[in-house]
């Protein structure tokens, strides 16, 4: 290991701890002037908000890694596979069919729809020529656009547009105790992914090698897609869409440490958690006491990082498609 890597390894957990401290202490209501009981504020708002940002970031980063290995394209992310739009359609459907359904059922409907939407993208991806790696994300963008337009049309005709607006842009100001706990499902899914990490990495070698190594290809694919769809649906339903997280974080970690999922999973999860938390903290500070959505902050930074990833190919290698 180079010294630079060693320094990184030592400093970045400290950075994460500082970020968490910042997230817990920054907000329109002060912890110290006695407006509210500090302990109550912590329990009801600050800790849930911090946990939500970290869980969403970790989840989207992991989902991005899995979808990239599954379709073998580095420029794809869960937001570019029609997954959130499909989740939205599922949510609309259950809202229309069973308006009083409990949040758990809404969640399940969104997850099932997300799974179907992601499977549709996977079917499409098999027919997209692989020579140009940028083609598949574009196809995903159009596919998501079509699903999104369908959702918007349905919402328009049924007077549910405002309801959609609530969660189209990801932000954490509405996170309170009792309204975000669904996100802890991501921790369970991360554990499941860790158990299946070798299988997912082998999936990234392609169908031929996966079959040659005796992997049950269809089963593993279904597992990967199920995880991606569930994470996307949980995030979109509880905090909204967070573009670029699933694109940028896996690419950075892949450059830094390669693609072995078992070795990298904690790094991917923690990097995603740290970056989304940072975006949320910046969004809270930049126009204090008003807030800029974390998704907006992340998109601005993420777009820049993405351009850098496109043009600065790793040493002696290239960005593979």
């Amino acid at each position, binding site marked *: 290991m180079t010294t630079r890597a060693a320094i990184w390894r030592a400093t970045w957990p400290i950075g994460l701890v500082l970020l968490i401290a910042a997230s817990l202490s920054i907000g329109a209501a002060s912890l110290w002037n006695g407006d509210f009981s500090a302990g109550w504020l912590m329990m009801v708002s600050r800790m849930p908000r911090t946990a939500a940002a970290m869980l969403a970031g970790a989840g989207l980063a992991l989902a991005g890694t899995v979808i*990239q*290995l599954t379709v*073998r*394209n*580095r420029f794809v992310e869960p937001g570019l596979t029609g997954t959130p739009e499909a989740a939205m359609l599922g949510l609309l459907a259950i809202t229309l069919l069973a308006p009083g359904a409990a949040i758990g059922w809404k969640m399940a409907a969104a997850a099932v729809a997300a799974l179907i939407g992601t499977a549709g993208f996977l079917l499409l991806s098999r027919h997209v020529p*692989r020579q140009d790696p940028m083609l598949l994300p574009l196809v995903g963008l159009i596919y998501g656009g079509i699903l999104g337009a369908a959702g918007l049309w349905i919402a328009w005709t049924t007077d549910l547009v405002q309801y959609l607006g609530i969660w189209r842009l990801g932000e954490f100001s509405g996170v309170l105790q009792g309204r975000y706990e669904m996100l802890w499902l991501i921790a369970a899914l991360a554990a499941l992914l860790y158990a299946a990490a*070798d*299988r997912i*990495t*082998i999936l*990234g*070698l*392609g*169908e*031929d*090698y996966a*079959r*040659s*190594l*005796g*992997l*049950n*290809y269809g089963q593993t694919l279904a597992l990967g897609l199920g995880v991606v769809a569930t994470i996307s649906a949980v995030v979109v339903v509880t905090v909204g869409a967070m573009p670029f997280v699933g694109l940028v974080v896996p690419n950075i970690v*892949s*450059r830094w440490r*390669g*693609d*072995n999922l078992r*070795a990298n999973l904690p790094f991917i999860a923690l990097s995603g958690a740290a970056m989304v938390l940072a975006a949320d903290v910046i969004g809270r500070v930049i126009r204090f006491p008003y807030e800029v959505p974390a998704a907006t902050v992340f998109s601005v930074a993420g777009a820049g990082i993405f351009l850098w990833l496109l043009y600065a190919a*790793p*040493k*002696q*290698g*290239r960005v*593979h*498609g």
Partner: protein
Amino acid sequence: MIETKDLRVSIAQSELIHGISVTIPKGGITAVIGPNGAGKSTLLHTIAGLQSAASGTVTIDGTDIARARPQDRARLVAILTQNQPMLGRLTVEDLVSFGRWPHHRGRPRPEDTAIVAEALAEFALTDLSDRLLDTLSGGQRQRAFVAMAWAQSTPWLFLDEPLNALDPRHARDLMTRLRDLSAPGGDGRSVVVVLHDLNTAAGFADHVIALKFGHLFLAGPKAEVLTAENLSSLFDTPFQTTEVKGRQLVFPD
């Protein structure tokens, strides 16, 4: 022994293999030759279970490959395909370790680690073991994939045009290794290899299977198949053979 019976394979509604019945003997190197589009890769993929047959059967050492569990199949035959993964920034050691996956399914035992180390040494990769695949030259990467297939420790080792990315020295090294490990008294493997270079087939193979337009053209011991007359008719172009220092050479006229 591998046996195919009236094997037919279709991809995207067009039949590429038109009823091939062939026997591949155990031990030694069997070369698969033929013009472009003859179905060499398709035959290899189908026998290895990566491609399903439209009709007909494949049995490897008595196991019906279409009915075998994926895991059992992966302990019977390892294949190096031409499609190297585009994704997969893995270290050489990680890649070769995945060759052991059919045996340990995620829980490596000491013997697995030992075999990986042996594979790295066998293919001169020990010094490169920490390097990521996409920082290697084409030839080094090819060797890493061969080492992975070797580490699978299967009685049958398939290689689809393994010499493509290799310079003459590494091509010769690889063929020599394949000959050593498939020779009687080696480690008892049988090698089936798709080759474009007929002189490599002439120099290293024991048996030759010649395909043309998805049909079996000829199969048998090297000396019987690689004659000027057969090759001229197989490739629709005149061939000559000659002998240099006791080795048979074939070349288009």
